[in-house]
């Protein structure tokens, strides 16, 4: 259940090759992400939080009912700008005052969200092992 995002791209064709993210601007209700090719996308905080890749949130997206519940929980949280930290050189982490802050969002995941694609690629979450 992704909210439509702003896209300042000429045409609807999206490239599968991910450009380098150059800017991450936190706004009141969403984040504006800018890439090296000049494209800009808005991702709402609700979308970002609903797609948290951590082991607690991910299984909840496997089933429609729990996914909707997760969405409702996320939408009920206060709208706040998260603290952002760069993880290694491959991901971003978000710290929220309330709600889950565990997920490490790979740049590829944010790219999928920006392009309104399912960041889980339609695959159900299966717990793995370290």
């Amino acid at each position, binding site marked *: 259940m992704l909210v439509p995002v702003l896209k300042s791209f000429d045409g609807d064709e999206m490239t599968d090759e991910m450009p380098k993210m150059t*800017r991450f601007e936190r706004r009141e209700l969403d984040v504006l992400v800018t890439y090296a090719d000049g494209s800009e996308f808005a991702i709402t905080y609700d979308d970002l939080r609903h797609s948290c890749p951590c082991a*607690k949130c*991910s299984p909840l997206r496997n089933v429609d009912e729990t996914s909707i519940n997760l969405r409702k929980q996320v939408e009920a949280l206060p709208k706040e700008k998260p603290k952002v930290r760069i993880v*290694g050189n491959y991901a971003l982490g978000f710290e929220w005052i309330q709600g889950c802050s*565990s997920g*490490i*969002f790979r740049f590829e995941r944010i790219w999928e969200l920006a392009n309104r694609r399912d960041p889980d690629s339609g695959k159900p979450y299966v717990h793995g092992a370290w």
Partner: protein
Amino acid sequence: MSDSPVTTHDPNADEKPAEASPQEQKKMEQAYAQMKRKMSMEEIGKKIKHKIMVLSGKGGVGKSTVSTGLALSLAQQGLSVGILDIDITGPNVPKMMGLDGQRLHVESGRIHPAQGHLGVKVISMAFLLDNEDTPVVWRGPIKLGAIQQFIGDVEWGNLDYLIIDFPPGTSDEPLTVAQSLPDIDGMVIVTTPQEVALLDSRKSITFSESLKLPILGVVENMSGYTVTGKAAPGSEIEIAAPAGKTLKATANDDGEFSVTLDIFKKGGGRLTAEEFGVPFLGALPFDPGFVRGGDDGVHRIVSDPEGPSAIAFAAIVSALQEQIIEDAGTGLEII
């Protein structure tokens, strides 16, 4: 003596300063040693360019094999590398690095690491044990002190990489190191292909989060055992594989064939990395040479520097180096 609460110091007065009791003196000495160690840790942090922690949620997945392999593979690139074996109760890095029975050299209160294959510097609890059969039974605070001493009192010199090998799980050791050693690059998580409990995964994620350290990637060990052989050119070979499966191969024109048996299943490491959104650094083949090499003190990378395991390690190291920011950072502007 005046009644005034204010006293003045007369340098000519023939008064001796009050002497500290032996207990107070001991406390002061301890505090001084602690302060010196802290300063030393900061100094060491600056001299070592990259610090990488190697961990796993469960035991027996080959952390020490991966730690020593990473160190040797980096050393093969001509880099100066050290290994800190933090597994206080079961240290086995020295044996793998051909340093069994070695003692550490101490000079002016500083511990000098032993040097193993390819000049890799090694510090391990094993060097301090009189007998390798003697168990180390230490409670938390003593263990913590030993780890801090291993970090603060060791003369590593300038290193490009320090690989830190931990015991399995999420206990005191990684926490102590993460809090003591500045600017750690992140963690490498070692796993085997089979699935284990959800609990371990959750613990590891929460753990890396609580330490505020990035996961540099997942390494899958014991990934597949490749059987090679010779048969009549063009002939079909059938091999009985695990789980009642039969694998088929065809001998090439020279009569050579190879089949990979996925003894512990396949792809768990990649799947785990994908699930948790962290990089997958690569898979290491199931290589009995690691066992023989470990026992004989000649690491597989040393005995067969161009073999499949050495090549796999080189690929993993390359992926690892890609994850480590050199200086420029990601160039991402966060507003």
